[in-house]
């Protein structure tokens, strides 16, 4: 992790943190409620596997992993995220920090033990996480703004192609032809999300995967949902 600046002492100056708390259902509920009550955006998941996937998909400040979270385990999840270049603060939540099986330091930025001080310790960790994220964001602001302009410029090309994709989808659905359905779905899967159409991208991914797995009913159902989405999209109006 890059060197962290000292966080502002005025709590009101810090924005709320975006975090995931990964723990088995019923575990650390007091902590997640306290963090949400303090204004942080807390999403819960109940496995380390899910935590890894979501941490790779979303911009977050921190990931809190219960030491005993089901799935691949907290340490394996932390290791994957470190090795895959994901910069976010990793906090291990343990029942007893002094236990022989406590996580090795270095993998996690913080190890927080259950107890009266745990909420305050997590608040401190989140303040550092937010400070680090915001320091990077300030440094990267020019590139992010320029990128937003590029997306806007390229989206007009994508939107010009939407009616063509819609026609191709409609034809494939009418013919019941999975190969013909796959081509527009592959294009939409890879691109629609880049231009703000995440729902279409997700449906296209589902359709394409279902075609490859031979689940054609599911594929055509997803294809019909995509066609409905595009039918309601002014940029994709059939001409």
């Amino acid at each position: 992790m890059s060197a962290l600046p000292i966080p502002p002492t005025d709590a009101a100056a810090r924005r709320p943190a975006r975090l995931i708390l990964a723990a088995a259902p019923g575990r650390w509920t007091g902590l997640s409620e306290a963090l949400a009550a303090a204004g942080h955006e807390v999403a819960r998941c109940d496995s380390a596997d899910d935590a890894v996937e979501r941490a790779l998909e979303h911009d977050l400040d921190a990931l809190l992993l219960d030491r005993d979270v089901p799935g691949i385990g907290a340490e394996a999840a932390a290791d994957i995220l470190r090795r895959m270049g994901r910069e976010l603060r990793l906090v291990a939540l343990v029942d007893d920090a002094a236990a022989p099986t406590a996580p090795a330091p270095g993998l996690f930025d913080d190890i927080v033990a259950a107890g009266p001080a745990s909420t305050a310790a997590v608040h401190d960790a989140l303040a550092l996480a937010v400070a680090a994220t915001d320091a990077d964001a300030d440094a990267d602001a020019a590139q992010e703004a320029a990128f937003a302009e590029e997306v806007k410029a390229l989206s007009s090309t994508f939107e010009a192609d939407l009616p063509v994709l819609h026609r191709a989808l409609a034809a494939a659905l009418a013919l019941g032809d999975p190969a013909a359905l796959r081509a527009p779905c592959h294009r939409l899967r890879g691109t629609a999300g880049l231009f703000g159409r995440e729902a279409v991208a997700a449906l296209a991914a589902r359709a394409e995967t279902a075609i490859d797995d031979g689940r054609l009913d599911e594929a055509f159902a997803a294809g019909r949902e995509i066609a409905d989405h595009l039918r309601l999209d002014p940029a994709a109006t059939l001409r």
Partner: protein
Amino acid sequence: MTSPMSLDAYPEPRATVLVADDAHDGRQLLARLLQLSGKVRVVEARNGGQAVEAYQHHRPVMTFLDIDMPGMNGLGALTAIRAADENAWVVIVSGTASLANVQQAMGLGARAFVVKPFSAKRIIEVMRQAAQALGDARLIPE
């Protein structure tokens, strides 16, 4: 007597970065973001086979491989590239963050895993890490 040549006459060559994706929009967007983020020259490939050839020809500093390409996919290209160059710095790009794919990519030697739709923040993050690991300042914005 001729005056000495100024060092400014020989600007530092840009870092070559390879982007492989069969989707034109995705390739173009990523290429543009890479150019905004560092002093890079982007080489594009439309499938895994082209990516492997382009890697051998250009020896890029970093390579971005979309996981889902016709013919040889991203993981196949990753395997071939790492077989040719065990130090290759390869980032896998995918539309989904399936743990199985992430673990497979890691096992094959990928250095990062980026999920679409990627944000500028995430691309800058992986470039910054590559810059630190490779000692190549051209990969980060000034």
